[in-house]
């Protein structure tokens, strides 16, 4: 076993983990943060995307021990004071989801995308979400949602970077 200390959604956690524990299983099974989904489990679909020190990563391809000392943000950590994150609101308002399985990963990737590029074009949004697969929507409303959130965040000068 290895001892790790990670800050997850602002809370410091100390845990003993087997070195082979994947970050996604640590989040879901140890911390009961089941908003982060396991989709393909082969680093393709992006359903397991979380922020590791602010950068989007596929948590099925990160060992929990690699996150020792790091700060992690999951979908459960982005609403503030009972208010949805602008991306959550935009996905709702723009119908950016159908079954919702990919949505947490889409939103976490979008946070990183808007951190790097607060005013993305449609093409840049599509490229920025290349690591996330949706089998329902055809992506159209997801792209609309990210564009709407970007506009709203620029207007409100909300920092895209969430930790």
């Amino acid at each position, binding site marked *: 076993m*290895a001892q790790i200390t990670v800050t997850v959604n602002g809370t410091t956690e100390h845990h003993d983990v*087997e*070195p*082979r*524990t*994947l970050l996604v*299983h640590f989040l879901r099974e140890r911390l009961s943060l089941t908003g982060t989904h396991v989709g393909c*489990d*082969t*680093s*393709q679909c*992006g359903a397991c*995307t979380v922020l*590791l020190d602010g*950068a*989007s*990563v*596929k948590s099925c*391809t*990160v*060992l929990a*021990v*690699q996150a*020792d000392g790091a700060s992690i943000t999951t979908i459960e950590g982005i609403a503030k004071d009972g208010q949805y994150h602008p991306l959550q609101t935009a996905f709702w308002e723009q119908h950016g989801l159908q079954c919702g399985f990919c949505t947490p990963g889409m939103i976490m*990737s979008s946070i*990183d*995308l808007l951190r790097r590029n607060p005013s993305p074009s449609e093409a840049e949004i599509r490229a*920025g979400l*290349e*690591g*996330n697969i949706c089998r329902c929507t055809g992506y159209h409303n997801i792209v609309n949602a990210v564009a709407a959130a970007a506009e709203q965040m620029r207007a409100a000068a909300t920092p895209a970077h969430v930790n």
Partner: protein
Amino acid sequence: MYPASFSYSSPTSLDDALALLAEHGEDAKLLAGGHSLLPLMKLRFAQPRYLVDLRRIANLSGIERSAGELKIGAMSTYAALAASDLVRTLVPMLADAAAQIGDPQVRNRGTIGGSLAHADPAADLPTVMLAADAQMAVVGRRGTRVIPAQAFFVGMLTTSLAPDEVLTEIRIPLADAREGSAYDKCRHPASRFALVGVAASIRLAADGTVLHARIAVGGMGPMAVRVAGAEAALKGHAPTAEVRHAAAALVAAAVDPQEDLQGTVAYKRNLAQVYAERALASAVHRAGG
């Protein structure tokens, strides 16, 4: 999918990492970003008994210009390469390649050193390293040695890195003003690996003819290779569309693709032709030709 059980260390110095490699021998594997190794471990294709994580060792990442070369720490991520003004300006084909690897999440974790040491035949960076004439700085218990890219890649998933050595830095000789480089690839639609990837570096003489060319191709055989015939076909000539077409035909003739779900041998040779022409056209354009 869980990997098989293993022991794990994250040493804080290169000496400690080397000591662990010496102690555990063939049972140990180095872990960089983990985006080649962990998928293999999850599928149980790789079952190392000991992982030595390099993430806490200082000075293994970073990009800096010094004395005629660009020095890139082996732990630099693809995202860092793609976002680097130094890389974009001084080795544009490396920026081209880094920006096209995988997807944003993969680029946030995957590292140049990890990719090169893994030497996947469909990876992008080995091809670029060959066309860049890069030097691999490698540290072992016997000291440091520098391996030219052409001697570093020796076969499918195989490099000349010894099991008790660590790739620490990639050194790329810098171009002069009339040199241009480019990388272009046909991405596998699902995996984003290169069905074919071509890297070209072209140096022009004052009269606009090609002084020197390096062309490498990957994804179409067990390892990326330089294509000396195509390089010779450019040298001394003005790099017109006709000359580039002829050089690209030599790239297509040199590759050794296998027929699979993605296409026939003839289709893949045509891909090599098309992408070689594109890479050559961009490289010549960037060289001011």
